[in-house]
């Protein structure tokens, strides 16, 4: 009997990933619908129901700081409540640095006399531009290979030929996106709510090996042709430390689903770029007359050093 599950497998995976993505859109507090930057020096907060003016009018109920500096509270100049009492606009004394996520704390929100609890939210720049900057940041400006020095074993192992390099890069990108999304889901919905943060290394390494195995099995059944081309690289993916670094970074920065996706995609594409650049040079090196002591790995390291120097030129660049 032939099981025709293959046709439904990809849509099913896409649907599951779509649910993950949607789950990332909501804010962390049930009573707050949306928070966003407005103009240069204001933050706009939308509530699910009307809030009391007496509560909202008191500026000491709101506390805002930039995420890296929790000690420096930003000074709120004015709080404006809209006519239907569902929207509150905080105006600040100085212009806000929108490149940093801001943490907004609202003490015991009161609505129609009832307390809704305290909300701690992060306010981020909206949004495509910010996502794009994470992508380009992970891919080029903070390229994982040339500026963070991760994944070097696999990088030097598979950059001898262009075809191998591209195959490895593509496989790696697919696996890292899948495993990063799974790690994000587990971190956000299991590890964090139950305060199991200290288990993140154990959980992530297990999850990564699991997702490599899953991609292996699915690819073998769904598309044997593709598996034949890329199957060999799957074993190597697990030996690459970028794949475990990405979940750790997104847990550290508390990224949401979109940001995690962009970081993983950027890391994968950045690795692909690095491999491609390196393999083009190493194919030429085969023909060059290299001193015998430098043949093989040593000269590859020197070449990678030159690339790293070139990539230093991107540092400090910011998009949007």
């Amino acid at each position, binding site marked *: 009997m032939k099981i025709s599950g293959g046709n439904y497998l990809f849509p099913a995976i896409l649907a599951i990933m779509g649910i993950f993505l949607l789950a990332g859109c909501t804010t962390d507090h049930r009573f707050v619908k949306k928070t966003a930057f407005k103009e240069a020096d204001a933050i706009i907060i939308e509530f699910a129901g009307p809030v009391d003016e007496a509560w909202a009018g008191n500026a000491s109920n709101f506390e805002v700081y930039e995420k890296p500096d929790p000690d420096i509270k930003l000074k709120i100049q004015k709080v404006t409540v809209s006519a239907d009492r569902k929207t509150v606009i905080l105006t600040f004394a100085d212009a806000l640095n929108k490149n940093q996520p801001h943490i907004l704390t609202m003490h015991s929100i009161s609505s129609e006399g009832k307390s809704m609890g305290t909300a701690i939210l992060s306010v981020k720049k909206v949004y495509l531009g910010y996502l794009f900057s994470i992508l380009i940041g992970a891919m080029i400006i903070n390229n994982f290979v*040339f*500026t*963070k*020095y*991760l*994944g*070097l*074993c696999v990088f*030097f192992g598979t950059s001898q030929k262009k075809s191998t390099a591209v195959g490895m890069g593509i496989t790696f990108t697919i696996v890292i996106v899948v495993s990063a999304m799974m790690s994000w889901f587990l971190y956000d919905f299991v590890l964090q709510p139950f305060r199991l943060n*200290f*288990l993140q*290394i*154990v959980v992530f*390494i*297990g999850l990564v*090996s699991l997702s490599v195995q899953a991609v292996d099995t699915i690819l073998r059944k769904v598309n044997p042709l593709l598996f034949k081309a890329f199957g060999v690289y799957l074993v190597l993916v697990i*030996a*690459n*430390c970028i*794949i*475990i*670094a990405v979940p*750790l*970074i997104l847990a550290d920065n508390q990224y949401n689903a979109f940001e995690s996706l962009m970081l993983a995609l950027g890391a994968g594409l950045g690795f692909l770029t690095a491999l491609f650049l390196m393999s083009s040079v190493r194919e030429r090196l085969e023909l060059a007359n290299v001193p*015998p*002591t*430098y043949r093989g*790995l*040593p*000269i*590859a*390291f*020197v070449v*990678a*050093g030159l690339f*790293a*120097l070139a*990539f*230093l030129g991107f540092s400090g660049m910011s998009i949007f």
Partner: protein
Amino acid sequence: MPATTKTNFQLVSNGILDENPIFRLALSMCPAVGISTTVMNGLMLGTAVLFVQVFSSCTIAAIKNHIHPRIRIPTYTLTIATWVTVIDLVLAAYMPAAYKEMGIFVKLIVAFAIITMRLEIFACKNSVSASFWDGIGMGLGFMFGMVSLGLVRELLGMGTILGYDVLGFRPLLFFVLPAAGFFCVGIMMAMFNYIELVYNRKKRAKQV
């Protein structure tokens, strides 16, 4: 491979010289390039790796008869992850400054090929005490590589060793740049190759 017949001293020196993880096996290159800017960093990460290697080797050697062969790799991975979590939390609690400097590399010890490799080819076939000495050797070998890289880079880049001013001037500021790690490792590997080349030539000359 049957159980080892080497003495404890041979096991340790094997890890430091013959199978040095960084210069001979070319494994776990990431920290060697990334954070070998000072001797202190090398010492710290070397200690962490030594700890993880020794403890996971001993753990696996102790329970080797109870591990089903088909799930041995996941078992190794989880054992290593557990010990990495321990050292990660300890470092974060007692040495926050050094921990911050090393950044994500402490957590990434879990992905070091060298540790899994030692478990697979040594610890799962040998007694606890032999695995202990093998772990010490491998850890010291890694530390030796990291510290020697750090020594060269710190001396040439900053003119200091362990923060103490030795030279009084900065010969080549280039070496403290993160990118110089690649050059440093490349040149050191070439040096090892050169020494080996000369050594072999001499040996051949003696034979003839």
